[in-house]
Structures are given as C-alpha cells and as structure tokens.
C-alpha cells in the first residue's frame, strides 16, 4: 500500500507523461522502428554531408576508366562515362531525399491550407473543393503525374510540381475532416461569437490544431513519394542527365546489367534502403498513434 502513495501525490499530467514516455521506450525497444530511424538519420546525414566525402566529382567524365568493377579506387565501380558511382550515389542522396521531402512539404502544406479553409467555411466552397479532389483522385496518381510532367516538359522541377499536385487531394481531405470537427469546438464557436474574422480563427485555432495528424501522414508519405519520384526519373520524366538521381542512374545502367551488374544495382539498392527506412518509421508511428491498433496488438 505504501508504494502507491507517491503515485497519488503526483499530478495526473505528469503520470500521463511518464506513461507516454514509457510507451515510447517500449516502442523503441521494437528494433524495427529504431532501425528505421537510424536509416533515415543516416541517409539525411549522407544527403547533407555526402558531397564533402565524395571522392570524385559526380559529373566528371573519365573515359579511360569507364565501366570499372568495384575496387578500392571506386567502391561501387564506374559508369559508361567513367564517372565514380559511389560519388554519384552520395550526391544523389541529396536529390532523392530532397525531392521526397520537398514534394511532400509542398503538396502537404498547400493541401493542408485548402483543406482547412474548405472544412471551416463549408457550403459551396467546400462542395466545389471536394468535387475537385474527387476528380483529381479519380486518376491513379502516378499516371496523372506522368501526363502532367509530359505536358509540362520532362524536368526535375516539373516532376516535383506534378507529384506535389497529385499528392495534394489526400491532404485536402484529411485537413478538411480536422477543420470540420474543430469548428464545432466551443473555443472556435466562442471566437466566432466574439466576432473574430474567419482568417483569424483559421490562423489562431484551426491551423495549429489541425496540423499534428497531417504531419504524421506526411512522414508516412515520404517513402512512397521518393519511390514515385525515382520511377518518374527512371522513365525519363524527372531528373535529366547528367544529374546524379538514383532512378535515372538505374535507367542509364539498365542496358549494362548483363555485363556490369553493379551499375544499375547500387542506385536501386539505395532507393530501397531509404524507402525501407521511411516506411519503418511510418509503420512504427502508425502503431504508436493508433490506439485501436495498439489494443489489437497487445
């Protein structure tokens, strides 16, 4: 009985906090989530610092050393122009990760604002916005992104714009749902009654409170977006040569597969590893934040 005394004197918020921390630690004991975090942190580090460690210039042509197998001089071999694949891979991390994060940020933030406005204002505006998202979502996203990039002209920027655009509707819907439920909250009603302008309510109450779930979904999305961006580049719609983008590197290496396997294999492996990292985190976050799933698991 004595042992329970300190528990009783502890404020409930603190108890809740400790419980939450305990649960996080429990989760992080799950090696998969930790592993995912390690992979993502490592790849972010590579993206940030990689170019400083790259032994060669990623676009410097050296035809005397073309298609060399992996060795001490070239840990991942060289491509058909004698460029060092390891250096290209390091530089490519910046492009692939950067694309994934920028596309998600762009599509997510624009979608978030539109969705919040749609849910908060309701009525005709909401109806129009929702029908528009229906329409955009009625085409499989990669197909729409392909068509858009083809129309705009294949380039890294256009591929990013297209992918951000096709990713937007799901954020619009999610944010709209959040805004809809928030606008029934007493403090929002009070602000309305007080005569606050819609924009002030959106900024002061809706945006900050609707944001956290969107952030989680955006994190879950990055892995898939990196894959989609790599696929567009692979198809020749994204990064253009000589840019060291992983998808494009697999594409240019594909015809050398039979004779020089390392050329297309390493960049593909890099995409796989980064995507696994983000998906592991997504998986773990899902477990952590979905109480239903948590109950089911225990």
């Amino acid at each position, binding site marked *: 009985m004595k042992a329970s005394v300190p528990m009783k004197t502890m404020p409930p918020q603190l108890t809740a906090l400790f419980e939450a921390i305990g649960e996080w630690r429990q989760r992080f004991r799950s090696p*998969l989530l930790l592993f995912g975090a390690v992979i993502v942190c490592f790849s972010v580090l590579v993206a940030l610092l990689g170019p400083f460690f790259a032994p060669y210039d990623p676009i410097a042509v050296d035809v005397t050393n073309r298609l060399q197998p992996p060795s001490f001089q070239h840990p991942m071999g060289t491509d058909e122009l004698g460029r060092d694949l390891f250096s290209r891979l390091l530089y490519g991390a910046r492009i692939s990760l950067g694309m994934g994060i920028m596309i998600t940020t762009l599509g997510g933030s624009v979608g978030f604002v539109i969705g919040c406005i749609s849910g908060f204002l309701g009525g005709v505006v909401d109806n129009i916005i929702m*029908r*528009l998202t*229906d*329409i*955009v979502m*009625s*085409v*499989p*996203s*990669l*197909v*729409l992104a*392909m*068509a*858009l990039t*083809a*129309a*705009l*002209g294949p380039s890294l920027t256009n591929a990013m714009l297209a992918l951000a655009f096709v990713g937007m509707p799901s954020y619009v819907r999610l944010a709209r749902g959040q805004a809809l439920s928030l606008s029934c909250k007493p403090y929002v009603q009070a602000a309305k009654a007080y005569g606050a302008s819609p924009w002030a309510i959106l900024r002061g109450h809706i945006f900050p409170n609707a944001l956290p779930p969107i952030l989680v979904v955006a994190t879950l999305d990055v*892995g*898939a977006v990196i*894959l989609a961006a*790599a*696929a567009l580049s*692979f*198809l*020749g*719609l994204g990064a253009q040569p000589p840019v060291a983008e992983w*998808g494009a590197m*697999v*594409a240019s290496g*594909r015809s050398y*597969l*039979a004779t020089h*396997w390392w050329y*297309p*294999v390493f960049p*593909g*492996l890099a*995409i*796989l590893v980064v*995507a*696994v990292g*983000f*998906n*592991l985190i997504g*998986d773990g976050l899902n477990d952590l934040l979905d109480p239903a799933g948590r109950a*089911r698991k225990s």
Partner: protein
Amino acid sequence: MAFAIVRQRLMLLGVVLLGLTMVTFVISRLIPTDPARLIAGDYASEEVVEGIRVELGLNDPIPVQYGRYIGDVAQGDLGISIRTGRPVLRDLAAYFPATLELTLAAMLIAITFGIALGVLSAIYKDGWVDQFVRLFALVGFSTPSFWLALLLIYLFYGQLGLLPAGGRIDPLLDDFSHPTGLLLIDSLLALRLDAFVSAAAHLILPAMSLAFIMIGGFARLVRASVLEELRRDYVRTARSFGLTERRVVVRHVLPNALNPFVTQLGVYFGAMLTGAVVVESMYAWPGLGSYILQAIESLDFPAIMGFTLMTGFIYVLINLSVDLLYLAINPELRGART
C-alpha cells in the same frame, strides 16, 4: 434503399467523368509546343500549320474547344494519334488486352500468396512467419518495381536462362487467332499447348514483378481481418463443437475475413495499373504502359489524353463496382448508409 445508393453513385460517376475530361483537356493545353506544328512536322510551311490549326479548331475560344472535346469523347472519339496516325481509341483497344492479362495475372498471384501468408501470420501471430510477412510487406512497399524487374531479368534470364525476358510470346508460335486478346486463353482456344506454355513463361516475370509490391500488403490486410474474426463468438462456438482449427479457419473465419479485403482491392488496382506502366517498359510488354511511354516521348498529346481518360475511367468504374459489391455482400451497410 439500395437502389437510391446506386443511383446516387452513378450520378457522382457522371460528375467525376466530366471532371476527368476537364483534367485531360487542361493537360493538353499545358503542352508548351503548338499542337498543329507537332502534327505538321518541323519542315511544314506556315500555311500548312495554319491549315491544321483551323481544321482542329485551335483558333476557336477555349470553351468552344472544350465543348467540342466533350462531344467527341461522348461519341467515343478520342482523336487521332500523332505518332501512329490511327484513332487513339483503336490504339488503346489494341494495347489494352496485354495490360489486362498482365494485371490479372499479377492480381491472381498477389491474392493467392497474400491470403495464404496473411492467414498463416494471423494463426501464428508474433511467430516467425508473422515477422517474416511483416518484413516482406515492408520490403515490398519499398522496392522500386523497375529495379526489381531488372534483378529478376538478371537472375532468371541472364544467369539461369530459365525464363524469357521480353515480349508476350515466342513470335514463331504466334500464328493463331486472338479473339480475346488474352494470349493464355486464345492459345487454349486454338488448342495450342506449345503457345500456351510460351505465353505463360513470358508472363511469369512481369507478373511477379508487379505482384511483389502487393503480396505483403495483401497479407497484412488479411492478417488484420482474420485476427478480428478469430475473436468473434462464433469462432468460440465452432471450436467448442470440437471442429478442427483448420476447419474453423477455412470454413468459418476466412469467408468473413475476406469481406473487408475485397473493398481494398479497388484501391490496389490503381496501384497495379500504374505499376504496369513501369513494369511493361522493362519487359517490352506490348501493353498500354509501353504505348503511353512512346506517346510521351513523341509528345503525342491525343494519345496521352486518351490514356489518362481511359485509366481514370477504368479506375472509377472498378472502385464503383467494388463499392457496390461490398454493399451486396454486407447487408448491414445497406440500412446504415441511407
């Protein structure tokens, strides 16, 4: 009541399809080059280009052009492909069966393995099968399909020499008629076993590349709903009657557990269609994916618009039928939605 829902869904379908034409129309307007110049070619004189422009009505106001476009689409006229010079609809129809065969085969593989692995990982929850399936799903979601296709080609074609790596069938055996366009079925109809074997061998690698992404995901879905069902009262009852665990799972749990799975298939079919574009390009598979990539390369905008429209149409239709199917197999929802 059910009729009201169906009617409502069909009306919504109309709105979405109209919206789709708007999307494809906007895409065609985004193309920075002059379509008339594209059709005429680089060496045509300005008069010829202007003639084509007038002929296509490109000088008309945008709303007039859009109205004409909708009218054409409604009549099944998707325009003439710049690259092939044939009607886009006929081109799409010619390439569609190959994609259908590929996606159906991939679906079949993914569903079979997905259900088997899902049930196993639910029964042996937290065991090594379960952990393996979890990892498998993760890697499946994270593998670039074009890269997986490369590896499979390298292994099964390059190293082992077991399977072909391009095309749909050995061209020498392709001398029978194609009433359905699905070579597996056509070869059987023509009683050509050699052709059937060749078509099947050509299908394995592309279908596996496409299915791989899905298997783990399917397994996870099945696992979740089997676990859900295993906790139900009827399972306890069945067990207390002394039925074997195998019978309980196969006869009682599985039919119920597959309901929610069916509704998810529609979503996955969209992923399958886009995956097919990438995979087809790897295996020189003469389907819609190869067609659209060639169209993109030559800025063949009627073909790009037609393809986008058709994909959207199929996707919407599949999702609609999945919804209706779910309504049909789940009577509880019929009352709930109205």
